[in-house]
């Protein structure tokens, strides 16, 4: 029986690891953690995660559902089209913006502009739902 249990557990560990590798929606970022934090909500419901990541050489990219777009005018337009397509399919989708603490506003701002423009393009009956991702610092 023991070898069987061994193999079953190995399979479980394997699939847990694989599922983590496949989850590329959330690259590791040093998210802002305001102190003291206001009442925040846990992210629920359908959402589209847009992460603003740096490649380490000073260039920024928008990361959306496994695809990378350069943080410039073209990238912002591509982002807008992708978000608009998603909002047409599911108007209740929230756009979750994840950016590191040191990311300049000029890089994050086009994401919000794209979200607003996408809402307009998708003719949403309500404002675009945006979520600003943060973490809670230990002990707060």
């Amino acid at each position, binding site marked *: 029986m023991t070898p069987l*249990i061994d193999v079953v557990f190995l399979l479980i*560990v394997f699939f*847990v690891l694989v599922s983590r590798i496949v989850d590329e929606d959330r690259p590791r970022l040093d998210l*802002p953690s305001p102190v003291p934090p206001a*009442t925040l*909500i846990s992210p629920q419901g359908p959402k589209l995660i847009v992460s603003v990541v740096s490649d380490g050489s000073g260039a920024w990219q928008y990361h959306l559902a496994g695809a990378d777009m350069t943080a410039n005018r073209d990238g912002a337009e591509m982002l807008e089209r992708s978000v608009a397509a998603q909002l047409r399919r599911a108007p209740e989708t929230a756009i979750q913006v994840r950016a590191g603490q040191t990311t300049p506003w000029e890089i994050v701002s086009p994401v*919000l502009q794209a979200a607003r423009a996408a*809402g307009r393009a998708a003719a949403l009956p309500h404002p675009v739902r*945006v979520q600003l991702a943060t973490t809670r610092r230990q002990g707060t």
Partner: protein
Amino acid sequence: MRLHAREARRAGGGLVLNMAPLIDVVFLLLMYFMVATDFSPAEEVFRLDLPASVVGSQPDPPDPLDLLEEPLRVRLTAAGSSGQAVRVQVEGPWDVTPSIKGLGDFLAGSVIPQGTLLVAEHPIIIDPTPSVSWEHVVAAFNAAVAAGCTNVTLETAS
């Protein structure tokens, strides 16, 4: 296990417990729980609604003679030698300490019922300059939300 015990009895020895498979399973369990545990801090979010048009919808103030009518605009500019600090400026005649804490204190003292200047739904627009870091933008947003403001937005007009 039974086979091992029988062999041991046949050999004239006592009962021998084979520990190796047990340790295998214990290590597998340990590995499983280490992999399954998420050590990264949980993420929470601020909710921000972006209307299709530029923010301009005015709430109905209970007393228009006493209350502010225009959206309250909060400008953030990068400060300090390396631009890591932030300077906060609230548009209008108010004397606000130019820091995130000053903004929080001003808003907390202005929103009804603590203050008399703003209703909680009054639009507050945070308008950062391009070089302000995201950390400070979120800190200003947090200060406004913590003060009880429910209609806080970020300036996204290009």
